[in-house]
């Protein structure tokens, strides 16, 4: 039992750090692959819509209102 438990501790350390790093390295590789795929095939359609549509809608409404006002003004 003398040297045993320190050796056990060292073995756990090797296994533990090895597993943590293996896990995170695979995770990093997967993250890079994932972001490449997503940017290639799903290039932010929702973001574009979300950010632009309200502005566009508002603009469209404003344009309609202004146009209507101009037409109304001219038709006088």
């Amino acid at each position, binding site marked *: 039992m*003398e040297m045993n*438990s*320190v050796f*056990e*501790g*060292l073995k*756990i*350390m090797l*296994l*533990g*750090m090895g*597993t*943590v*790093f*293996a*896990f*995170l*390295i*695979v*995770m*990093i590789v*997967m*993250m*890079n692959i*994932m*972001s490449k795929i*997503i*940017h290639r095939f*799903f290039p*932010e359609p*929702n*973001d574009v819509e979300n950010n632009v549509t309200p502005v566009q809608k508002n603009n469209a409404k404003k344009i309609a209102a202004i146009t209507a006002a101009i037409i109304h003004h001219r038709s006088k």
Partner: protein
Amino acid sequence: MKSIVLKFLALMVVSFSLHASDAHVAAVDEERAASSTHKEETYQPKSLSEMTAGFFASTGINAILNPDPNEVNAHGEAMSDFHKSWGRVVMILVTFLLFYLAIAKGYEPLLLLPIAFGGLLANIPVANIAGPHGFLGVIYNMGLANEMFPIIIFMGVGAMTDFGPLLSNPKTALLGGAAQFGIFGTLVGAVALSQYTDVFDFTLQQASAISIIGGADGPTSIFIATKLAPELLGAIAVASYSYMALVPIIQPPIMKALTTKAERQIKMSTLRHVSRLEKLVFPIMVLSLAILILPDSTPLIGAFMFGNFLKESGVVERLNDTLQNALINIVTIFLGLGVGSKLAADQFLVVDTLAILILGLIAFSVGTAAGVIMAKIMNLFPGTKVNPLIGSAGVSAVPMAARVSNKVGMEYDRSNMLLMHAMGPNVAGVIGSAVAAGVMISIFG
């Protein structure tokens, strides 16, 4: 009325000087034992002096001055006289110190306050609140003995976590891995010291449970401690949360000692935008990895990613809100009280506690150093440079450690904002600690 008070005082004096109450104490204890087993007993009329003496025998003053020789602790084991009498007083004073730290110093009050108050209640003599039938004992058995509460806390933490910074700079996850060296390095140190010196004597399981403090992740520490060394839970939880609160004091000296001024001023490029789909896929991806590599870590990682997935899905706002607020608050109250029940004098006032506090601090410091050194190693390779100050955020302690990285960076360059860059290693540290915990579970079963 006056005469009753006088009689009572006189009786107190008599019982102090002669221990005359011992006989009564025994009688009262028999009655207590009888009443707890619900044995039918007819009530015998007593004289006023008998009644008063009997009442005095059940006061806390008497319990502290003349500890009951037959009293057992929450595990049904005999205790030393010190742990039954003055040890309790010492522990109650310790909980007062924790109150002070939580309220005046602002050390993690959300957990330290319930823990400290639980400790105060657990050290009350006679009432046995932390015993199997006391309400603290019930809370402990309800969610700590079966590791339920830490898991629910993990769900809430997952719902609060934003993986955006990590996704925009994935390689910083390595810093969160390096910081876990604090756990395993301390494990080896604790085992070696137990083996070759007489300072303390921890088994491999106990050493593992103590060194997990280096992960700087409260729920993980509690989860592992209840699994591997429940007898050390109180000290481990208190050490874990105290050091998390002390992050702004412990980390900066280590960070400054290991870096040069030029390194501390490294500017990092702004983070790229992360799409919503990436954030949605990420929790499922990490959980899939955990399933393939280390199923033992899936209780923690699964709960964590469940919370995060609910948040990122964007369609269950109510559930996300409950996880982040109501549920995590409720469970925090119970978790704190349950951990506090382990602050009973007979479990906390032992030499081991001091060793745990010291080893925990070492684990924490080594983790911080390992993260910083890892960043320096990464800078030896070609590619974009990493500011080593964000390495220290690899210990979990979200978001405190990231704030510390930011603060130290600002000291050397007012315009250097490291907060978001440090959040990457910070959340990776949570995943790293969960993996480290999974390794321990897989080894010790």
